[in-house]
């Protein structure tokens, strides 16, 4: 019997306290036993897993990071050796790449407009496009049938044959694309500093958030809870969900601009590469930095494999780190260099021991033993699916499509008890009323806006400009006095407005030191 550890669900707020209600107690006990049985029997299925994970071990004086790809190719079986290949594409580079969720197809995008979708194991080209336009990001949607390309101005969606299906004109000037497969949301970010969520099943722009942090440097999803992580030029990583217009969390991840980031599959760890040549590992359950590594030059790309291997592309080098989430590593797991080129994107292939690397002069596929999940679940993702199975899983996926507003930091919150106090919660009736009221207010304001026209002239009259110039930036007694009067007036105005809106005035708050006596 395998260990039950990984099969356990750690649901938040589950207590084992006993209540006075006997029926409830016995029910809870029954549920608990059911859960334990389920975990146990799930652990028992371990012996049915067919494949073993790969590994690479050094013997004697050898070091794993000294092994070259050529040596590895000599030592592995023919099937794996054939998966090591180089695509020499010097004309349209630098390239970026993406794999389908089952790892079967490879999508490459050259900056100068070359896009191709390839069944890389069979070496079969599905389509090849020359767009004659800048391509900054490519992304497969839920399967290999559709992909999105971020072009010079808009984002386009193409199908497998290379036919243009949609031009998403709401997504302007995007450089980053991602896709949330369970919500069917295409997300884009880029130079405008906007994060946009687009539902590809209904073709609706679900929400757009202004980050207010300048052009977005990098964007990745947390595969565990579908929260989008955005890296910014001030070193911050912000976490977003479509239902909140402000970030769920902000992390000052690096000192310099964030170059790239990645989140592991159970959503516990985030790896952030900064322009300050650091590579940091964060625990995003409690937002704490675990370890910091350095890269000799700033890294362009990081990725985390299903088994927790980290690939870092810096300059012409690719470095793979192992067991970084367990303890600080002294030396990397593997190394590779592509001379006289710059690494653009590295992506581990799902369910394979392969790392796809895109660089200035093409694509290379590297063998990284132990990087892939050996045993896939065919009910979820199937690398060997037939077209019928693919169609069925697409329908199933659409039927089980999750609503965008179900994205939260804790994905298991649904179906749990709201533990807030009764008076803090709104009843459905009250919620509806509030909704109606806000809507009505908005409508009223709309009318008001039409009615009221600004009487005063604009700020930038010539006279005002002159006066502004004359004004010196000196704090005088008079200026302070005016400031305080203005502040008081503002407060009064606010109070009045609050009163009109029915917001009750707070009672005088006793200062903190005295509050304990009240």
């Amino acid at each position, binding site marked *: 019997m395998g260990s039950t550890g*990984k*099969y356990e*669900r750690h649901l938040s707020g589950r207590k084992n306290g006993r209540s006075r209600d006997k029926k409830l107690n016995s029910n809870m006990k029954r549920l608990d036993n059911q859960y334990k049985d389920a975990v146990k029997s*799930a652990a028992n*299925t371990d012996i*049915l*897993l*067919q*494949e*073993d994970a*790969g*590994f*690479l*071990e*050094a*013997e004697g004086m*050898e070091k794993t990071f000294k*092994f070259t790809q050529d*040596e*590895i190719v000599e*030592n*592995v*079986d023919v*099937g*794996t050796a054939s998966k090591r290949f180089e695509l020499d594409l010097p004309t349209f580079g630098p390239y970026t790449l993406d794999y389908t969720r089952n790892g079967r197809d490879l999508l490459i995008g050259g900056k100068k407009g070359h896009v191709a979708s390839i069944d890389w194991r069979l070496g079969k080209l599905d389509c090849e496009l020359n767009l004659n336009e800048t391509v900054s990001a490519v992304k497969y949607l839920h399967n290999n049938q559709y992909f999105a390309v971020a072009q010079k101005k808009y984002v386009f969606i193409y199908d497998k044959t290379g036919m243009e299906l949609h031009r998403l004109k709401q997504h302007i000037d995007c450089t980053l694309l991602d896709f949330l497969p*369970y919500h069917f949301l295409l997300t884009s970010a880029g130079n405008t500093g906007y994060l946009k969520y687009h539902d590809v099943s209904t073709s609706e722009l679900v929400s757009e958030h202004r980050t207010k942090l300048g052009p977005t440097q990098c964007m990745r999803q947390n*595969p*565990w*809870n579908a929260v989008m992580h955005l890296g910014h030029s001030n070193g911050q990583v912000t976490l977003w969900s479509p239902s909140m217009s402000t970030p769920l969390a902000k992390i000052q991840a690096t000192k310099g601009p964030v170059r790239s980031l990645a989140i592991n*599959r*159970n959503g516990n760890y985030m790896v952030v590469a900064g322009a300050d040549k650091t590579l940091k590992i964060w625990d995003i359950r409690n937002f704490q930095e675990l370890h910091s590594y350095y890269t000799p030059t700033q890294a362009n790309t990081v990725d985390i494999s299903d088994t927790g291997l980290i690939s870092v592309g810096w300059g012409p080098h690719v470095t793979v780190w192992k067991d970084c989430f367990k303890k600080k590593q002294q030396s990397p797991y593997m190394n590779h260099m592509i001379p006289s080129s710059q690494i653009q994107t590295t992506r581990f292939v799902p*369910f*394979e*021991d392969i790392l796809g690397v895109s660089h200035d002069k093409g694509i290379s596929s590297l*063998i990284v*033993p*132990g990087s892939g*999940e*050996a*045993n*896939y*679940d*065919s*009910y*979820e*993702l*199937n*690398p*060997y699916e*037939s077209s019928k*199975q693919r169609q069925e899983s697409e329908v199933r996926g659409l039927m*089980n*499509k*999750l609503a965008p507003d*179900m994205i939260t930091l804790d*994905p*298991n919150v*649904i*179906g749990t008890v709201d533990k807030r106090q009764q008076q803090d919660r709104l009843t*459905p009736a009250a919620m509806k009323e509030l909704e109606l009221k806000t809507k009505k207010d908005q409508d009223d304001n709309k009318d008001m806006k039409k009615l009221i026209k600004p009487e005063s002239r604009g700020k930038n009259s010539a006279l005002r400009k002159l006066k502004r110039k004359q004004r010196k930036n000196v704090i005088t007694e008079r200026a302070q006095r005016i400031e305080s009067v203005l502040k008081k007036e503002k407060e009064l105005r606010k109070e009045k407005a609050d009163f009109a809106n029915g917001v009750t005035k707070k009672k005088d708050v006793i200062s903190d030191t005295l509050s304990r006596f009240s």
Partner: protein
Amino acid sequence: MKIKTISRSSDTYLPVRNTQEAALPRNLNPELHPFERAREYKRALTATKLERMFAQPFVGQLGNGHRDGVYSIAKNMKSVGKLATGSGDGVVKYWDVGSKEELHSFKAHYGMCSGLVVVPGTSRDSDGETDDGEGEGKKKKVVRATGKLLSCGADKTIKLWNVNDQKNNYGQNLAATSGETVMEEGLMKTYLSEHALQSMDHHRDQPMFVTGGAQIELWDTNRTRPVSNLSWGADNITTVRFNMTETSVLASAGSDNSLILYDIRTNSPTQKIRTTMRNNAICWNPMEAYVFATANEDHNAYLWDMRNMSRSINVFKDHVSAVMDVDFSPTGQEIVTGSYDKTIRLYGYRQGHSRDIYHTKRMQHVFITKFSMDSKYVFSGSDEGNVRVWRSKASERSGAKSTKLRMKLEYDEKLKERYAYMPEIKRISRHRHLPIAVKKAGEIKRIEIESLKKRDENRRRHTKKSDVKFVSEREKPVVGQVHKK
């Protein structure tokens, strides 16, 4: 260098021939299944919606029904597909449910046929059938499953009918083809009572039956006069019902709002309670011998424990008019009630509110409801003379299901149970279309009950604690209790 990589042989994962099934390996590691709960919830929601989409409870009606209201239905305990009904004009009909066709129709009584029962099984000593065979010297095989009906009416007669159970829906006589003698169909015997009868029931295995009317009398099938009179008090007995497990016990409900329990071993009543309003029907739980349900005039049905009748053990609410009949499913887990508000409701045995409500535009006051013997269907007889067949689970379909479908339905059932308390799912699964009269009456009733409760509350609050006691809903129907010395 020690090295190993994942290298899957496509032979293991892809079907070699197109007749082969593809391998579908599983890996239950939760990390491979993100959004587990959210997706389960979504599936539960879809399942709930589908359930409501497939909810079509009405199956059909039996034949052309009766010409007058249907006031009695008798189940055949031995056969799932047979049913007897009696109507207001004294006609008794025997039905084959599968084909919805009438097998027999007798003009049994002048006036109403008030009680009807299919004699459960046939016992050797009582029948007199065996005599026929012995008379000729050699034993002839006699059909024991041949059905018998007992009906009683307001015309002071009880009639025993012979019906052929073996007839199937194609008019073929199974018994005749197998070379067995079949008793002639029709009236076998008439018993004369001294007063008009309102209800009757037959003992589970003994050849005796009990009738209720001005008196409650115990009869032996082989005698023409009642064996004993069990009356306690002088009021009309409207319902009598034998316990099907503890077979010597029977319960009756009278027009003086009483519920009386009798034991025929001592030939006497044992205890009696008086309820606030009259009980229209009684049904014993087939699985728990000491539990029975009553349909009450006060819009509720009650569940009683015969060992302690000082309080009911459950109250089934939701009807907006008098409950006319109540019946347990053969599993004892569900009850069905028919009401004067022209609806049928189904309850879980331990639930207080109905899980489903059935109604049609043409159905009038429902006087009788019965579960079928396989608990999958519900029969109802109503004032306008139709005998209707309903599904006991509105969205369930009979017929063979593939393993895949069955597993899916089981999975959906579990999901619905798991997420039953989510607001959206709760709303959808509880939503029912109601006749406007029932809806309005329900609203008015709710307000009434609320104000009564408030009044009680106020009274309690402004009285000394010892003077006004809180009376639970389950205690409310009991006015008084008497034990026979």
